């Protein structure tokens, strides 16, 4: 079909096009950050560590919102439509990346406002290897495999995420760049000090076998070269007989004397563990906002807990 024939046909299609070519309104450039009347950036986050980093870096130039209820695990929380709407109206939405907060993958959020704080560390993310695969339909064998998401338990990764936040803030609010930079440096000092403290402590542990009540400490274990194996025990549930049987098998190969818990376990569970020669110690991953203190104080308390049970 010649170009003129095509154009002729297109011209004849004018009437059809007219059906949908009324007056067009044009908005301002999409994606531009529109700040509140007080000039602050409104930032929504998907977990508490991001909230902490954003508040530390943003200071009084940023309003950070984390709408997850205090009693849920933000990794598995799903916001309702109203909360999604609040996220949609944010200036920036900070994501942890690494598949954290699965609801993000099925929600309609403004792409231009999403900031994946893990985008620069994708080569250091850990893929969970024991995910079950399955096959159906024409796609063949596949898994819904997961990536370990508690990146912030490795302070060096947390530092990279904080750096991504600083860049996003500076891009959205250039006039605050200097302030963001200074506050980021302060946060970086704290994270590196935490890293040094954890490194010193775990150096004393060496390759002694440890247990984790849940597979959430992967990044910490890799960074500090811990000999850590995980089970699936819930702090507020007494494990089933099968779970105890599996633990017995694991202990035969991995004779750990300590189990790290996300929260204080039930006394009954601690007692049974003690009978097996395993003592409990809480290392709070701090995915949600703590009742008291902040990310750093919780992490320092975690270190204190470890020192208390293992000795300094």
């Amino acid at each position, binding site marked *: 079909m010649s170009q003129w024939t*095509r*154009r*002729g046909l*297109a*011209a004849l*299609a*004018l*009437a*059809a*096009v*007219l*059906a*949908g*070519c*009324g*007056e*067009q*309104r*044009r*908005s301002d*450039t*999409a*994606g*531009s950050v529109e700040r509140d009347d007080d000039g602050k950036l409104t930032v929504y986050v998907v977990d508490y560590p991001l909230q902490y980093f954003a508040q530390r870096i943003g200071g009084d130039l940023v309003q950070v919102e984390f709408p997850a209820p205090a009693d849920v695990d933000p990794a598995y929380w*799903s916001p309702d*439509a109203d909360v*999604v*709407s609040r996220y*949609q109206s944010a200036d920036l939405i900070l994501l942890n990346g690494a598949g954290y907060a*699965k609801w993000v993958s*099925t*929600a*309609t*959020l*403004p*792409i*231009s406002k999403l900031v994946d704080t893990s985008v620069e560390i994708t080569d250091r993310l850990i893929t969970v290897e024991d995910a*079950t*695969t*399955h*096959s*159906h*339909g*024409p*796609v063949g*064998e*596949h898994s*819904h495999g997961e990536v370990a998401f508690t990146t912030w338990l490795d302070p060096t990764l947390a530092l990279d995420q904080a750096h991504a936040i600083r860049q996003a803030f500076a891009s959205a609010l250039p006039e605050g760049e200097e302030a963001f930079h200074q506050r980021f440096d302060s946060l970086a000092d704290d994270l590196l000090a935490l890293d040094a403290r954890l490194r010193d402590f775990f150096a004393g542990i060496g390759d002694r076998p440890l247990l984790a009540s849940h597979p959430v400490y992967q990044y910490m274990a890799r960074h500090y070269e811990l000999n850590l194996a995980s089970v699936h025990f819930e702090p507020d549930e007494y494990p089933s007989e099968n779970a105890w049987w599996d633990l017995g098998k694991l202990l035969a190969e991995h004779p750990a004397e300590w189990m790290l818990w996300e929260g204080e376990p039930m006394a009954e569970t601690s007692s049974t563990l003690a009978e097996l020669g395993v003592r409990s110690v809480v290392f709070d991953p701090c995915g949600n906002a703590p009742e008291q203190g902040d990310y750093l104080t919780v992490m320092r308390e975690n270190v204190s807990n470890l020192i208390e049970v293992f000795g300094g």
Partner: protein
Amino acid sequence: MKQTLYLAWRYLAYHRVKTLILVFSITLIVYLPIGLRVLVDQSSQQLTARAEATPLVVGAKGSPLELVLNTLYFRSDYPELMRYEQATRISSSQLATAIPMYVRFNAQGHPIVGTSYEYFEYRGLEIVAGRQLGILGECVLGSRVAEALDVGPGDFVISSPESVFDLAGVYPLRMRVAGVLGFSDTADDDAIFVDVRTTWIIQGLGHGHQDLTRPEAAASVLTRDSSNVVGNAAVVQYNEITEDNIDSFHFHGDISQNPLTAVIALPPDQKSSALLQGRYQGDDEVAQISRPVTVMNELLGTILTVQSFITAGAVIVGIATLATAALVFMLSLRLRRREIETLFKIGGSRLSVASVMTSEIVAVLLAGVILAGGLTFLTSQFGSAAIRAFIRM
């Protein structure tokens, strides 16, 4: 003077059929070229306005016209497909905001537009009932779609299969209506908007199904070993995304390889626009970048050529009609010779008689021009809407 006008009026009123035919002919002669011009100008402005509001469109190499018509007006066959990574490429360049577009499927004759949240902000589209898109599987309706299908928030719209013979292909997806957009008098009024990932689910690139590792799915398992579960044909796949099953929805493979029909690029300034366009000039480039206003102007150039032919035809017909009218008047004068002689005999001067004749002609011409003016005004006010309504009938 009053008597002259009275005589002219009485003559025209007495020969009302002849007068009406003459007035009608002159109305058409004047109206056709002017009205057509007004209509085309108006349509051109409307077409150009939407094109001007869309700075750049990126698509796979192929017809720029198809790309622009599909992206701006959701018309024409869908263009060559490109990969979602092109949207990421634009975003990563930081030269423009990228709005992905996937306009391929339809529901009950209305185009399903897969896009991102930014599209609504960019086009200035407001929700007047319900709320914005919240999760995958939801849709937001253009005002005319809601009216035509008589559906509103909480109701459902079902996507149509691309082909009835494609049994293994696109499954109909039952989409919940989250909200209805306000009337914008644009192509957006006739569209069904969904998250671009919902269109991938419609295409079968993502799906939700029962968890094969759970005991209740035993009947759907063909084989199972320590690391792999093979489902059989009985695996229940969901054709509607709900809060209960949304966690089971997932995409296979690399999302960056999923298809798009276009990406609308919104550079913040001319420099960014020029830099972005420069990146698509390489010989090995798989994508093209188009300025919709240029493409539409080329199309309008063709339309204006067609219009000039029509105008020329109208002018020729007009000249012929005027000549006929002049002939009618001259013949009329000849037929009215005795009447004119009578006027002279009863004392009418040559000037008075000429004034009566001239008044008749001027009155007919004036009536025709006034009517044509009225029609042109109506065309400028309601022409486009009338054509759109006629086409939708």
